């Protein structure tokens, strides 16, 4: 294995060499290094450095010697995997990714499956025994190349085959995907460099005062195939349960699968136990790697992996998506494991997550005999009871009512702000009513059907926007409280000692400013102005994150609310940003 120093424009990850600087190789390659230095197996890769990018702009083209070094770099990957780039037998395909020290919009992200042409597609079909797979690889590569290198702006993802993708590209940009894999590679590297000076990247840097000469590195990494044989497959692993946060590995595995199979939903993956039965050694190796990445990352990880002929490769490890419930459990658990201190744990949970956990629910059994008036799509969860009105003006005049509309538009937003819940006749989960209600954290049910407005207006109803039902009358709700949940109780305790803002039901000191007593016309799209000298704030609008920020900026000492933790977390987040 070559060492990093023998190249002018490339760096090759080498477990014995010192970690390169992030500025030279970019964030993505740096994390590959990290995985490799933990002794974990990642598909072989090399990096074209940011120095090469600077030279590209100085020379107006790929710098002298880079084309030769790309050949040398690819030869290294070939020898590691026993494959040939552009080969007619056991072909090597690569991914090409940009990697700046700071990621920027408008920069090229990733081209997968580069190195594909007629011969390579045939060789892949022969090797995998699956011509459809080979055709799919080719189609996807053609789309990536067309969009990212050739600058095609048409939607290529939904086209059925390579021929139609090629046709769409040439109709749009009058250019074609080259057949020569080496030409593909050189053009892709140049395009990644070029993208660091795209219009959007330039605008972004200007807005944030980032220097313009900050280029990008390019990571070239071998693709591995999970669909090679029965001893191959692909999967994902969460180091902790993403739904409830329990500390147990959790994931899916698809034998003979390729990464995109799982994503496309073409095939239903099996639970990880399937891998455990077939390949206990690989499963054991995977769990050991997961444990290291969880510990090293100091957070729950979402790990992508591929098994190729019994050999485990890790493709990516990053903080896992999680529900609000899981975020709370994981943050507290990491403190108990000695990984985080309480102050850091508070940064892992957002005010919005806690708000969603503390939403009231319809009391157990209360809905059983209730009359369902209408039902639709649950678009923004929560429960609210109130009198139904049918205009935004009426909603403003009766804060806390239920606004029911055929559909909503920007004209209705001030009414939606005043209402306790929003119900519409038309529209689905992406309608204006749904999007705005989620932004406001207001319960919302959409698509309840014709005549909903007429049948509900003037009645008192209970909207259950978690199940999408609207019930007649007022149903009892069960209020959730921080003190009833051990994890929330501990987080609240930590949060109280992390901010001087006092939050609770009995914290008021004069003078008090109560937003809930304001006249309707003052509750618009802006927060109400806080009078100078105010010590205590009341009112729901000051318990949301933007209200808390305004309160702190106005020098307020206390906020009165039943739910302390979301307010405390918003205050801590604001302190962190402004200090």
């Amino acid at each position, binding site marked *: 294995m070559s060492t990093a120093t023998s190249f002018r424009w490339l760096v090759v990850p080498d477990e014995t060499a010192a970690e390169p600087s992030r500025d030279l190789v970019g964030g993505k390659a740096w994390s590959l290094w990290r995985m490799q230095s933990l002794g974990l197996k990642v598909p072989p890769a090399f990096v074209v450095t940011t120095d090469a990018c600077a030279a590209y702009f100085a020379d107006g083209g790929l710098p002298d010697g880079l084309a030769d070094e790309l050949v040398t770099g690819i030869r290294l990957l070939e020898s590691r995997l026993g494959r040939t780039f552009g080969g007619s037998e056991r072909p090597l395909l690569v991914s090409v990714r940009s990697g700046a020290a700071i990621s920027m*919009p408008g920069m090229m992200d990733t081209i997968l499956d580069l190195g594909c042409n007629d011969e390579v597609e045939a060789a892949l079909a022969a090797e995998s025994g699956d011509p459809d797979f080979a055709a799919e690889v080719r189609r996807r590569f053609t789309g990536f190349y067309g969009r990212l290198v050739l600058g095609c702006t048409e939607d290529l993802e939904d086209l059925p085959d390579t021929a139609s993708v090629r046709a769409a590209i040439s109709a749009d940009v009058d250019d074609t995907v080259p057949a020569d894999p080496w030409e593909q590679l050189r053009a892709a590297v140049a395009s990644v460099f070029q993208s660091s000076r795209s219009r*959007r990247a330039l605008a972004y840097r200007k807005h944030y005062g980032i220097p313009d000469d900050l280029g990008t590195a390019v990571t070239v990494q071998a693709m591995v195939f999970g669909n090679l044989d029965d001893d191959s497959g692909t999967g994902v692993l969460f180091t902790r349960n993403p739904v409830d946060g329990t500390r147990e590995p959790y994931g899916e595995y698809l034998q003979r699968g390729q990464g995109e199979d799982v994503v496309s939903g073409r095939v239903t993956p099996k639970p990880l136990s399937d891998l455990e039965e077939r390949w206990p050694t690989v499963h054991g190796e995977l769990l050991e790697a997961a444990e290291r990445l969880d510990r090293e990352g100091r957070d729950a990880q979402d790990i992508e992996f591929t098994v190729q002929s019994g050999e485990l490769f890790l493709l990516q490890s990053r903080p896992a998506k999680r529900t609000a419930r899981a975020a709370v459990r994981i943050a507290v658990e990491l403190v108990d494991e000695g990984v985080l201190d309480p102050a850091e744990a508070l940064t892992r949970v957002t005010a919005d*997550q806690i708000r969603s956990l503390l939403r009231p629910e319809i009391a157990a059994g209360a809905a059983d005999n209730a009359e369902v008036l209408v039902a639709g799509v649950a678009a923004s969860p929560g429960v609210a009871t109130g009198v139904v009105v049918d205009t935004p003006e009426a909603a403003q005049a009766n804060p806390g009512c239920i606004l029911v509309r055929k559909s909503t538009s920007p004209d209705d937003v001030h009414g939606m702000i005043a209402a306790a819940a929003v119900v519409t006749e038309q529209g689905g989960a*992406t*309608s204006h009513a749904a*999007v705005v209600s989620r932004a406001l954290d207001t319960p919302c049910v959409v698509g309840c059907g014709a005549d909903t407005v007429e049948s509900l207006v003037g009645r008192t109803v209970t909207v259950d926007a978690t199940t999408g039902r609207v019930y007649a009358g007022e149903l009892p709700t069960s209020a959730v409280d921080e003190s009833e949940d051990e994890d929330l109780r501990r987080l609240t305790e930590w949060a109280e000692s992390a901010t001087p803002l006092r939050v609770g039901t009995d914290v008021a000191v004069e003078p008090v400013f109560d937003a809930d007593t304001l006249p309707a*016309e003052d509750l618009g*799209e802006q927060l109400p102005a806080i009078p100078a000298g105010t010590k205590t704030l009341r009112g729901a609008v000051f318990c949301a994150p933007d209200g808390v920020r305004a309160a702190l900026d106005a020098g307020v000492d206390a906020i009165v609310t039943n739910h302390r933790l979301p307010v405390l977390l918003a205050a801590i987040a604001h302190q962190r940003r402004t200090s």
Partner: protein
Amino acid sequence: MLDFYELTVHTLTLRQLGSAEQLAEINALPVADVEAALEKAVADGAVMAARGNFMITPAGREFLDGVYPRAFAGIRSDDAVTAAMDDFETGVNKQVLALTTDWQTVEVDGARVSNDHADADYDAKIIEKLGRVQEKTQKILAPLIEADPLVERFLDRIGAALTRAEGGETDYVSGVRVDSAHTVWFQMHEHILRLTGRERPE
């Protein structure tokens, strides 16, 4: 075209409650013109004033209903505009709503839950896609941009919101209390529906 008085009253259908400065930000008129228009509109009963903020009245809406057919007769009879609106409604508008939903919610193990914005890659991809849709919209709405310069201004403001969101000001994707990409997109949608005399499809 609308004169500055008509345009100011019209702007209050895009933003229901606003100050003269906020309305000028949308319609690109000098603030002094907006203030003069608002003063006249309040006297006419077309607009209500409430502590520096303004709202359109039912009489104001009736006034606009009388103005639009004359002001936009050319746009409404232009086949290229009609085709552009059809493309807009069936294409990019649906994409923006779906992307905004993807921004607000993520799928965790089959269930859609609020996006806590912990996954910077996920967020960056959505903003990137919104940026591409915004660029595509520029092409699709070309006939409207030619007919009315405000349309391009909306697209510029959406681009500015996306740039702020890219820098971590996440409210600028779908926040209601700021000129987020979604807020401005909906203003633009309402504006072009009124230009063309169409109903909002749901």
